[in-house]
C-alpha cells in the first residue's frame, strides 16, 4: 500500500484552495489561542504551588474585606476574559463558514459526487447533456476555476473529505447538499470517506487532480469518448467475455451493451491511477487478482468473485487495458 501513499499529501495544513485556506487560518487561530491559554493556566498552577504556604497560626478563615474584594475581582476578570475569547472564536468560526459557503461564480463547473459502499461515483454535468459523462473514484478539476460539488449517497451515510481543498461534508441518502471547491495550484490531492460506512470504509479513497486548464480540457474530451471498439481476435474475445459474464449486470462501458448502474463506470478504467477506490494500484496483476477474488483485497465488498479460465482471463485483461 505504501506506493499508493507516495508523491502526494492528504493534509488539512497544506491548503491548496481558498476554502481550505480559510479553514487553515481558523485552525491556526484556535491552535495558538488554545496554546496560550494552556500555558497561562499551567503558569497559574505552578505559581499557586510555588507560593509559600503561611504557617498554621496565621491562617484565618475570614480573609477580611480587602482580601475578599481582591479575590472577587480576580475571578470576575478571568471569567470576563474567557467569555470574550470564546465569543471571538464564535465570530471567527461563523465568518469562516460564511466565506467557505460563498464562492459563487457564473462559469462554475458542476459535479455530482455519489457515495456508495465503498466507492465514489462522479458525474460531470454539462448544460448540453451530450457533454455530460460519468467516472469513478477520480475527480479532475481545472486550476483557478470554482467547482460546484453536489453530494448524494445511494446506500448509507458517507462523508466527502478532501482536506487540501475543503472540510468534511456528509453525504446523506435522499438528501442532496452542495459545496464549493477551488484549487489554486496543480497537484494530486487525496480524498477519503470520513463517516464510518461499513466494512471497507477505510478503503474508500478518492483522487483529486487539479490540472492546468488545457490539460483539464484534454482530459474532459477523452472522457466524453465512448470505449474504442475491440480490434483483433484477442480483444474481441475479451469484449465477449465481459459481455457474457456477470460484469454488465453492474458495470457500464459506454458504446457497448453493458449498462449496469451498481458499480463503477469502466469506460475509461485504464486511465485511472487506482482500482477499487484506492485499495489497489491499477496494474494488470492487481486487476487480475481483483476480478478473481475481490474479497481478498476488500473483505465484505459487494463485487462477487469470478473465476475464468486462463485464456478468457488474459483476453479480458487485455480488453480492459485498452479502455483508456
Amino acid at each position, binding site marked *: 500500500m505504501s506506493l499508493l501513499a507516495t508523491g502526494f499529501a492528504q493534509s488539512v495544513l497544506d491548503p491548496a484552495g481558498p476554502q481550505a485556506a480559510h479553514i487553515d487560518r481558523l485552525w491556526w487561530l484556535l491552535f495558538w489561542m488554545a496554546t496560550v491559554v494552556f500555558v497561562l493556566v499551567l503558569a497559574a498552577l505552578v505559581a499557586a504551588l510555588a507560593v509559600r504556604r503561611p504557617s498554621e497560626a496565621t491562617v484565618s478563615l475570614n480573609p477580611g474585606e480587602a482580601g475578599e474584594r481582591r479575590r472577587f475581582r480576580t475571578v470576575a476578570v478571568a471569567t470576563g476574559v474567557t467569555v470574550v475569547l470564546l465569543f471571538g472564536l464564535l465570530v471567527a468560526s461563523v465568518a469562516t463558514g460564511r466565506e467557505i459557503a460563498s464562492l459563487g461564480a457564473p462559469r462554475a463547473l458542476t459535479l455530482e459526487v455519489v457515495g456508495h459502499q465503498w466507492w465514489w461515483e462522479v458525474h460531470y454535468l454539462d448544460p448540453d447533456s451530450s457533454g455530460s459523462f460519468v467516472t469513478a473514484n477520480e475527480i479532475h478539476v481545472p486550476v483557478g476555476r470554482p467547482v460546484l460539488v453536489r453530494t448524494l449517497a445511494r446506500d448509507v451515510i458517507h462523508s466527502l473529505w478532501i482536506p487540501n481543498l475543503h472540510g468534511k461534508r456528509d453525504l446523506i441518502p435522499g438528501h442532496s447538499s452542495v459545496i464549493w471547491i477551488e484549487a489554486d495550484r496543480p497537484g494530486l490531492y487525496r480524498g477519503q470517506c470520513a463517516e464510518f460506512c461499513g*466494512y471497507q470504509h477505510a478503503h474508500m479513497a478518492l483522487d483529486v487532480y487539479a490540472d492546468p486548464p488545457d490539460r483539464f480540457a484534454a482530459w474532459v474530451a477523452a472522457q466524453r469518448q465512448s470505449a474504442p471498439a475491440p480490434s483483433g481476435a484477442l480483444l474481441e474475445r475479451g469484449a465477449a467475455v465481459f459481455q457474457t*459474464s*456477470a460484469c454488465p*449486470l*453492474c458495470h457500464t462501458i459506454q458504446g457497448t451493451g453493458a449498462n449496469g448502474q*451498481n458499480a463503477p463506470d469502466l469506460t475509461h478504467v485504464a486511465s485511472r491511477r487506482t482500482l477499487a477506490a484506492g485499495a489497489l494500484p491499477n496494474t494488470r496483476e492487481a486487476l487480475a487478482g481483483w476480478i478473481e*477474488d475481490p*474479497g*481478498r483485497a476488500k*473483505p*465484505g465488498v*459487494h463485487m*462477487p*468473485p*469470478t*473465476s475464468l479460465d486462463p485464456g478468457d482471463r488474459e483476453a479480458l485483461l487485455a480488453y480492459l487495458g485498452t479502455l483508456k
Partner: protein
Amino acid sequence: MRKRDAGVSARWGGRVPPPWEGAVGSGGRLGGGRLAPVLLIALTTLLLTACERERRDLNTPPAADSHRPPVRVGTLQPGARQASDSAKGPFDENAYGISEGQRLFDWYNCTGCHAHGGGGIGPALMDDQWIYGSDSANLYDTIAKGRPNGMPSFAGKIQPKEIWELEAFVRSLAGLTPKTANPARADHLSTTPKPTSVSSGEPPKSQPAEHPG
C-alpha cells in the same frame, strides 16, 4: 465455525452477570434454585441462535452449485410418492444473507418485473402460493434456470451464493423465513405486518402440494 461460536458464547457468558446467583442468594424469595436452570437454558439458546443469525462469511470462494436433486415442481408421480428436496437454503436463517438478498433484488433488477414483491410484469411474491413451488430448492431453480413465459435464467451470470441470498430474501417476503432471522427493517411491501412479527417457523398458509398449478 463451531469453535468460534463456542468462543463467542464463552466471552458473552463471561460478560453477562449471572442472573440466577441473585435469586439463589436471596434465600429463594424470587423462586429459588428452580429459576437458575431455566435462565441458563434461555440464555444459551438465545446466544446460539443469535450467533447463527449474524454469521457472515465474507471470504467465501465461489462455491459449486450445492443443491441436490430431485427438485419437484409438481406432486404427481408414478408409483410410490417420493419427497422433494425440501431442505432449507443456507441463508434462510441468516439475517446478513437475507439483507444481502434484498440488495441484490434491486441490483439485478428483480424489481423491474416483480416490483418490491407486489408483482407487475411478473407474479407477486408477497403471497406464498408460487407456481413453481415455495421450497428453497424450487426457488433456487426458478432463479438459476429461469421459467417459461418471462423469468430469465441467471445461472452462469451470478454466483450460486448470490442466488441463495436472493432465495432467502424472496422467501422472507412471504414470511417463510423465521422471524428471528428477518432483518429488523425492510423497505419493501409485504402482506405480513412486519418481517419481525411473523411467528417463527410458521407453515405456509396453503400447502403448495394442494395447488400444483
